[in-house]
């Protein structure tokens, strides 16, 4: 297996690339290729999830009217283009599943952890390149199974992405049988993929750092991705175990979650959220890391309070494991547990606010360049603040009693996952696109994309807070059924129109992305004048990355160092001024 042995040892010299085509572009063990493969996969699922959301929004804004173009759907989903309630539940379920497991998570960890970790720490590749390849190729069957649900008898899973038992246990309750089984299998395979990735990221960061790349010189993106990998490593197997039991309940007739057989429905919720809350941080911590890099670069200033930023990432990660019960305040869980979980949940506000204030501190007295990644990072910061603050309402148990399972929580999760994670992902794509593909994305289209997205994103999700306060439950097929929700219908309609425009606003991005792949302006080595190691390499970097292992002399955020000619100081440059400064 020469190809598998390739990235290691003497066989690995940057520039000498004699791999056959299939090893280079398809079954590649090169972390950069795998990262790019993940990029296309996650963008595909982002689009799929987004389209599902549009159908959902159509039904909510204009209940009972045929979806434009919906007549192509089979009668089991939408007779005459009018969505069936069962199909609506399936849409809600698969929108969540696609976005969380197949879009945002691969987008943040799959793409950026893969692409950036070895480059930023000065390694030739991941610790286990072949496992890394499998981590991507397992996503293909997982994604296929998730999609396949739409085409089987009874339709796809319709018990929510949270798959609360016993609703998800039995076709008696939803009419879905094969679809739910496929969903379980898809998530279990996804879990295997995530496991292989996480093992790689953790091992690589611990053991493959270049000389001089001490822990406290790691870029915050690497710190965040490292701690995210630890979270995934410890949380995803709990989900896998829980889902395997759910699967057995469905196919082997076991009774883990079925009260009729002595099982416990709340056990599913505990296991699911023990995974689910760390999962929330798996989706946001990498975003925080990427944004930290971009904000420091855009402000031309060192990150404010680097050690505190690292500690805050660790603190959020640890607290993430002891707060899961806040998803279960009204579930019938022991109310004393509710008290404990409220206390731990409230504490999360502390490391989170440290991060926000330190980002502000980074911009303070900076020299802020408004390049497109920076715009998206600022978008992240301003929107994440809203998502973080609205979380405090849910953490307060009495208030949660009212807004739990309402549109308030839908607004909250989208402020964190779209306003937070996706803006950061856009920042990351714009920022590292030149390195990945050797060409730059168009700056003007990027600005247009950001402005439109920012506006319509807020118009879509902010009014959802109001819906929630009006008592609007989530996952409701037709809100006009309830007299007390009928007056809220204008808001629903407004949100739907904004949502359509939000999707339309992604056209400039799609156009920009694909056009720049082939026609974009050639990128120089270091277009953002960044300090990190990947910017010392050609764009795109060769197979094997570094011709000679780099040596690191300082942290990654040495911008505007007094006495330097330029306003940045790469990590691997043995400068005299820097030697004096330290």
């Amino acid at each position, binding site marked *: 297996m020469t190809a598998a*042995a390739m990235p290691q040892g003497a066989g690995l010299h940057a520039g000498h690339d004699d791999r056959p085509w299939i090893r280079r572009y398809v079954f590649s063990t090169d972390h950069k290729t795998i990262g790019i493969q993940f990029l296309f996969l996650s963008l595909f699922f982002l689009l799929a999830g987004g389209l599902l959301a549009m159908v959902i929004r159509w039904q909510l804004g204009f209940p009972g009217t045929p979806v434009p173009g919906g007549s192509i759907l089979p009668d089991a989903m939408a007779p005459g283009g009018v969505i069936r309630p069962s199909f609506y539940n399936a849409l809600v379920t698969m929108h969540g599943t696609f976005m969380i497991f197949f879009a945002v998570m691969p987008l943040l960890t799959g793409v950026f952890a893969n692409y950036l970790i070895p480059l930023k720490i000065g390694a030739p590749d991941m610790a286990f390149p072949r496992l890394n390849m499998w981590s991507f190729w397992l996503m293909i069957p997982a994604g296929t199974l998730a999609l396949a649900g739409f085409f089987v008898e009874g339709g796809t899973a319709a018990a929510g992405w949270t798959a609360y038992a016993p609703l998800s246990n039995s076709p008696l309750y939803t009419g879905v049988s094969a679809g739910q089984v496929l969903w379980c299998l898809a998530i279990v395979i996804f879990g295997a993929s995530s496991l292989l990735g996480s093992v790689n990221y953790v*091992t690589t960061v611990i*053991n493959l*750092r270049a000389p*001089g790349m001490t822990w406290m010189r790691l870029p915050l993106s690497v710190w965040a991705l490292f701690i995210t990998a630890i979270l995934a*490593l410890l949380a995803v197997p709990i989900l896998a175990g*829980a889902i395997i039991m759910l699967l057995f309940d469905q196919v082997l007739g076991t009774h*883990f979650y079925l009260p009729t*057989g002595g099982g416990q429905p709340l056990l599913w919720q505990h296991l699911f959220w023990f995974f689910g809350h760390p999962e929330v941080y798996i989706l946001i911590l990498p975003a925080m890391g990427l944004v930290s890099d971009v904000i420091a670069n855009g402000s031309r200033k060192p990150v404010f309070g680097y050690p505190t930023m690292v500690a805050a990432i660790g603190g959020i990660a640890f607290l993430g494991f002891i707060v899961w019960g806040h998803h279960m305040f009204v579930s019938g869980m022991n109310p004393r547990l509710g008290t404990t979980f409220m206390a731990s949940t409230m504490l999360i506000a502390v490391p989170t606010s440290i991060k926000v204030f330190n980002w502000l501190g980074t911009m303070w007295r900076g020299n802020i360049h408004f390049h497109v990644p920076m715009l998206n990072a600022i978008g992240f910061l301003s929107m994440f603040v809203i998502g973080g603050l609205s979380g405090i309402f849910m953490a307060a148990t009495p208030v949660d009693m009212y807004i739990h399972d309402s549109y308030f929580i839908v607004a909250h999760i989208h402020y964190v996952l779209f306003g937070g994670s996706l803006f950061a992902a856009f920042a990351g794509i714009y920022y590292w696109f030149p390195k990945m593909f050797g060409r730059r994305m168009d700056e003007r289209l990027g600005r247009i994309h950001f402005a439109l997205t920012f506006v319509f994103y807020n118009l879509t999700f902010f009014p959802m807070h109001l819906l929630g306060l009006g008592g609007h439950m989530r996952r409701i097929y037709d809100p006009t059924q309830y007299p007390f929700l009928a007056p809220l219908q204008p808001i629903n309609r407004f949100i739907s129109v904004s949502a359509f425009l939000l999707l339309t606003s992604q056209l400039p991005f799609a156009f920009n992305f694909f056009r720049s792949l082939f026609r974009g302006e050639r990128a120089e080595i270091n277009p953002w004048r960044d300090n990190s190691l990947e910017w010392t390499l050609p764009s795109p970097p060769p197979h094997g990355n570094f011709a000679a292992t780099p040596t690191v002399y300082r942290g990654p955020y040495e911008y505007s160092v007094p006495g330097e000619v330029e306003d940045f100081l790469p990590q691997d440059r043995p400068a005299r001024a820097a030697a004096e400064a330290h």
Partner: protein
Amino acid sequence: MAHAAPLSAPRAEQGLGVYTQKLGMWVFLASEVMFFTALIGSYIILRWGSAESWPVPHEILAIPITALNTFILICSSVSMVKAYAAATQDDQKGLRRWLLLTVIGGATFVGVQAFEYHHLISEGLLPSGIREGSALAARLVDTGKVSATAAGLFGSAFFTMTGFHGFHVTCGVICMTFVTIKAFRGGYRGGRYHGIETIGLYWHFVDLVWIILFTIVYLI
């Protein structure tokens, strides 16, 4: 994977002071601990929370044969560690002998477990519960000793936990077979023991899980 060692050799920033494969295996095992936590934890929770009379495991399961099986697995762990010791001393004959014994031990364990499953299923214990009209039902449920619900839950948890452990042993046996073949071809000559130590960690971990499972599922 087997060739990953040279990567870490010239680095200045050594994280934990262990080579990459070993570290990777430990990281993987940390994840495995969480997986088994989900299964074993659920069993503890379901049993603790069961309002009905839970079956005494040794009235359903055959303890002596499983105790013997436990012993076989422990022995295969010892032979594994002896193989590792042989590899570090470049004792190729010892390495091959101990590896072969390890594979045989693991395969025997899986075989005994398959026999046990067959026996239990014919007695009437199924993942879905105790089969009506079976020998086990007559002995436990019909006499009112044990509630059918609790026994059913026990069956669900028993097959899931031991099944996944058995799956891990099976994977271990398959990998170990390849390692043994490689050893016979001299792949671990000259003090190249990293592969042996890494697979050994997995092997011992599976043994360790069994120690916990044997106690919690069979004895308590």
